């Protein structure tokens, strides 16, 4: 079973709609047992890091996510929460990726909202993605480029558009909102 994590900072409905459109069965849940025993986990996120981390800890979902052996896909705030630390309210995160999440310097408009292209793409979730394809971003914080970076994006500075480490995948952009190319990425993940 594919589970979409429901917590206090989700756009789980949007993600579920996208997964449905691709013809995969999934459920939205915050049940720790269902999540622990799932086939794949999608960890969406639209929200505030500190309140999200607090909620995950209170439900015991932080441990389940950190120790997951099945493929996990973090999206947007989901990516940031999988990192070690975020400057958003100085929050300790899950630490799957050894990356620090920082606030964009105000050299251009923040949040970074809109469609942007990505560079240096590698790995199976980018199968059939072309370098001129644009993806939808909406965020004020970014993960630094590090050894887990599998795609970069340039806005104010180069940052991680996607991360991957073992069974953990994460995108800063919203594949569920990035039209056909976004659906392709979701499909690549769901077909792993």
């Amino acid at each position: 079973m594919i589970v979409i994590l429901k917590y206090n900072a989700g756009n789980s409905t949007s993600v579920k709609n996208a997964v449905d459109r691709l013809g995969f069965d999934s459920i939205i849940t915050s049940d720790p047992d269902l999540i622990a025993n799932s086939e794949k986990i999608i960890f969406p996120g639209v929200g505030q890091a500190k309140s999200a981390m607090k909620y995950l800890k209170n439900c015991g979902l932080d441990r389940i996510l950190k120790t997951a052996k099945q493929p996990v896909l973090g999206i947007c705030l989901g990516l940031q929460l999988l990192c070690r630390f975020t400057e958003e309210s100085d929050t300790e995160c899950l630490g799957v990726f050894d990356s620090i999440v920082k606030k964009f310097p105000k050299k251009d408009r923040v949040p970074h909202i809109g469609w942007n292209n990505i560079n240096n793409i590698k790995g199976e979730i980018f199968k059939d993605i072309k370098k001129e394809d644009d993806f939808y971003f909406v965020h004020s914080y970014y993960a630094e480029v590090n050894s887990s970076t599998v795609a970069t994006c340039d806005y104010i500075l180069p940052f991680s558009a996607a991360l991957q480490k073992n069974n953990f995948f994460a995108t800063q952009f919203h594949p569920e909102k990035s039209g056909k190319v976004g659906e392709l990425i979701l499909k690549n993940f769901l077909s792993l």
Partner: protein
Amino acid sequence: MLKKRIIPCLDIKDGRTVKGVNFVQIKDAGDPVELAKKYVEQNADELVFLDIMATLENRSTLVELVKKIAKEINIPFTVGGGIKTKEDAKTIIEAGADKISINSSAVKNPSLIKSIAGEFGCQCVTVAIDTKIVDGEWMVCIGAGTILSDLKAVDWAVEAEKLGAGEILLTSMEHDGTKNGFSIDILEKISSAVNIPVIASGGAGKMEHFKEVFMKTKVGAALAASIFHYGEISVVELKKYLSGNGVPVRLV
């Protein structure tokens, strides 16, 4: 490179898309779900969905419509109209909206911006400002343009950013529905005064107007309704034109 966004707007009344001229003379413009799907096919970058008669009675109709649209489309969309509390915002976001837009309620209760941004992140909060010139000054109007406030548009945009707004949707009531072009004057002032993205709205009538607003102001997006609803300009055609004129847009 970040692309300039083209955003069709669906004004909703009793579950139908409508369009007025200078905020009055409302005409029917089609089924919102069908229109939403058409715009996705045309490569629109986002959709904005405003319930212009937002009342408690039709709130459940709006939520059902948001759910239907969210099922059909794979691009971001914003919902506004009658959002007065953090709980209202939560209901709309849970129905599938990516961002909420607040207008009158933010003017009446500025701390609403802060409380929604605190819960869902500032990128979810679009502050919509309707403005018109009164005694030579761009002033903020509320109540779908019916009530003049004592706020200057530029001051209010700056204040909204400080409170946590992620984006400003600026509509010039002087230009809305006229098809005479966007208001370069107030859009330039506001896009220079704030450091969050600004969406230009009101007055688009031909493709040159979009080029002009992107060339002469720092807006990140341009929104229009009637020219798209009645098929006068297709989004595909518009983006091809903009790209040919040096404006970065998403073409795929």
